[in-house]
């Protein structure tokens, strides 16, 4: 839509934005904008302006200002997204939500809360914890990521295995549309009369509207939680265990897998207690009534043993449990210690195909001479292979993309998906044709054109540009890629 503008021009628009949202909440100098050029994906884009609104009215007015000046608008939470959803693709105004972080209402008896989009995911759970409740979706970045970003990406997390992703926990939204209009969708009660626009907006990656208020469902904490660490000498046994647990109809709250390479990196960084000499571990969490947890635990242990587990450790207290989870949730960070750069993927496959898929990833790594660590939300077939590389080595960077593409294609071929929780963003837009027909994608574009006819909200995301064919859109080169 637009190329970046001159400093003088930007300063003038900034003046108008300041009149709307306040003097100290508008960034326009090149050096101030640099922080907002990237998110969790190693791809960059320069915004023309960053504005931090405090109210829905501010958002609406800034959107109108952007319209008058033909500037795209990109919403941004904490910038933890992994698909480039908050990265500017063709200039424009970034709306940062760090000032809209109020929990507006907590209503325990009605099991709901109303929040502003800048509220950090974990902060909501902490705020309701004393009442025995929490907010179920728990992305690994939950200490930093915001609920607005979660809604945009329909984020998941380890415990979505039992509780579902963001869309299963959002009851209603306040949304600013690309024309600046403010609308409401859904309600604080079930089955509100009307089309399920809430369900459409969740996961639309900021391309249909910008969320300014969210009503979420709160979940009661379980009576008992048991966390098991199943340790394996062969990766295959771990993946077979996951397939058997699913096939037996056992439903853990979380079922995570880390391979030897990954768990050693984590041990070096956080000392979570994963045995360094193992080939893989499963982190299995069971929740519910005490009796149910004990029974499931017996079932799970039997399945592990039938699949040649070396040892099963049970976290004896909250501290041990937290440590095991800390290792898992800080896994990406741990990778930064052992490799200058890494690239993480988010494909999904049927859980029955896990052993086969892991072999495939291993072969791809060998073929392209790359180290690939595997960390999976194994229980729902959501894979996060981590490809290590050094961005200073141009040859290596090319191989990373080739290996990554092959893994994605394999996911699609197995009847899976290209993204389980990170979103399509910039990164995977060209891969959409792997799982959708041209007609399917056209239909999505038609829906987009209803709300966002000028493509002014988060342009360049989700949809294939048509210029590249089936390629990942990631800048894997020196300077751009980060660990």
């Amino acid at each position: 839509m637009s190329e970046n503008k001159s400093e003088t021009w930007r300063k003038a628009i900034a003046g108008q934005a300041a009149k709307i949202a306040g003097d100290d909440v508008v960034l326009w100098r090149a050096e101030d904008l640099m922080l907002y050029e990237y998110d969790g994906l190693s791809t960059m884009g320069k915004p023309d302006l960053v504005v931090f609104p405090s109210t829905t009215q501010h958002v609406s007015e800034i959107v109108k200002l952007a319209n008058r000046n033909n500037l795209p608008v990109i919403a941004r939470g904490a910038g933890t997204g992994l698909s480039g959803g908050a990265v500017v693709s063709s200039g424009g105004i970034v709306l940062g939500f760090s000032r809209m972080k109020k929990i507006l209402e907590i209503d325990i008896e009605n099991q709901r809360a109303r929040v502003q989009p800048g509220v950090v995911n974990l902060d909501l759970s902490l705020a309701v914890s004393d009442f025995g409740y929490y907010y179920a979706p728990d992305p690994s970045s939950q200490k930093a990521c915001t609920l607005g970003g979660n809604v945009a990406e329909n984020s998941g997390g380890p415990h979505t295995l039992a509780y579902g992703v963001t869309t299963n926990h959002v009851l209603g939204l306040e949304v600013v549309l690309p024309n600046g209009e403010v609308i409401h969708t859904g309600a604080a009660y079930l089955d509100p009369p009307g089309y399920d626009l809430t369900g459409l907006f969740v996961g639309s990656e900021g391309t249909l509207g910008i969320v300014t208020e969210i009503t979420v469902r709160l979940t009661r904490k379980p009576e008992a939680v048991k966390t098991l660490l199943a340790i394996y000498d062969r990766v295959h046994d771990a993946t077979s265990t996951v397939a058997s647990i699913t096939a037996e109809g056992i439903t853990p709250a979380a079922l995570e897998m880390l391979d030897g390479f990954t768990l050693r990196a984590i041990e070096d960084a956080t000392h979570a207690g994963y045995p360094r000499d193992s080939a893989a571990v499963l982190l299995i969490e069971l929740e519910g009534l005490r009796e149910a947890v004990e029974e499931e635990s017996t079932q799970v242990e039997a399945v592990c043993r039938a699949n040649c587990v070396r040892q099963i450790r049970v976290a004896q207290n909250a501290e041990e449990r937290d440590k095991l989870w800390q290792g898992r949730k800080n896994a990406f960070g741990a990778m930064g210690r052992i490799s200058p750069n890494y690239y993480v993927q988010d494909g999904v496959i049927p859980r029955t195909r896990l052993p086969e898929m892991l072999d495939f990833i291993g072969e791809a790594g060998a073929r392209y001479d790359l180290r690939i660590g595997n960390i999976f939300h194994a229980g729902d077939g959501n894979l996060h292979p981590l490809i290590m590389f050094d961005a200073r080595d141009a040859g290596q960077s090319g191989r990373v993309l080739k290996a990554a593409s092959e893994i994605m294609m394999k996911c699609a071929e197995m009847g899976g998906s290209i993204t389980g929780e990170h979103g399509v963003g910039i990164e995977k837009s060209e891969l959409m044709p792997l799982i959708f027909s041209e007609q399917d994608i056209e239909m999505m574009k038609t829906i987009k054109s209803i709300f966002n006819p000028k493509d002014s909200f988060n342009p360049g995301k989700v949809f294939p540009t048509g210029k590249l064919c089936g390629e990942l859109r990631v800048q894997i080169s020196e300077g751009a890629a980060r660990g």
Partner: protein
Amino acid sequence: MAMNLQSSESIIEARRAVGVKPADAQSWAYAFAGIVGARRVVTDPAVCPAFNVDGMTPGAVVYPRTAEDVATILSIASSWGLAVIPLRSGTKVGMGNAPLRYDIALCLKDLNQVWHYEPDDLTISVEAGMKFGDVQRFLSRRGLWLPLDPPGGARASVGGILAANASGPLRVRYGAPRDMVLGMTFATADGKLIKTGGRVVKNVAGYDLSKLMIGSLGTLGVILDVSFKLFPLPSLRQTFAFSDASLEACRHLRRAILASPLTPLRMVLLNGPARAIAANLSAQYGPDSNHEFWVEVGGSESVLHRSAQILSGLSAFVGPEPSKLDEAVARECWDRIADYTAWASQPEQDLLVLKATLPIASTERFLEAVYQESEQEQCRVASFAQTGAGTVLLCILTAKGEAGMATFVSRLRGNATRLEGALTVLAGPPVLKQYVDTWGPPATDLASMHKLKQTLDPSGILSPGRFVGGL
């Protein structure tokens, strides 16, 4: 009609004919026969009334064999401006406002196959015309199920359940259809087949168009096949009943159960007439006594044992200990509680069922208001309150004139609105719908909904007028 037109030429001919709408139902039915075969287009006046919607009879009933058939039929119907209502068993036909127009009943009874089943992955894909009972029977062989107890029960079709986002008391534990759908294929009004979502249990690629189709009552597209995530059947189930409980006691009990470690499969609060309906007795004889509060739990023997202990501990709120219902009897009662279409066997000829959805905490207050209103109107009401979800189903048992009935419904809706909830009519005599909007005011931005409808169904042929806001 003695035609045998299934050749591709006849399809081409039928498509060529698009643009010139034949004058009468017999003639345009002939064109559809060219697509699906003469035996699959019925214009017999003895048959069509079985597909009536709010007293309106379709000109023809069409039975497509494939998704492609549906797409072709819709594209022609769009060109000719023929209004289409997808209908299978008609269990939820009472929902929605009276259609503005109604030419074709699209019966998907022959799209009834399981086309993908991965029991080890806990996923299944079925066609929309498959009956819910057949899906459950199929799944139960492997100890799996779709944890839904929608109105219409076994007779309901998968497509209908989704079009209505229909759920029952199991919702408190498992959620609504929208929470179990992984993806689907639907046909658009202009005859495109669109796939959305996928078959794996986690997937955020692209817009979640399934959400638009689910609950849109056939006004945005026709659902053709659906992929679900599956759940293991609970090994054992037990229903506990607290009897003779005042509303105040029920409120305490609801709070205590939701604050306890229990995760009940179902919870329902039944007044006297509702209790009678659940037991398959005439609601006329249900005593207007206090409520019964039923809680169903599932799991192993030790889980049921512990649940019994917890629930006994809560009996202080209501007085006597909860009784354990015989499992076989309880199952039948729950089936009747979940399926309001079965309440029609009551002496009243015109079934009138309302559904209020409220903040959980307002459930009992709403019931109080309902009882006050019904006493004033001298009107008997059976109330089935899913207190853990804030959903109340009301069956109005006293016949009144439609004007009086409309006023009564409006007053109940007023109470639901005052308590920050909503009230819709699930089933009612067609004449009542002339006086009352079955949906009430939309909760979601109406202008956006209009734009969606206009874009997806510009000719207004999909169940026109039946949805919220006249869509």
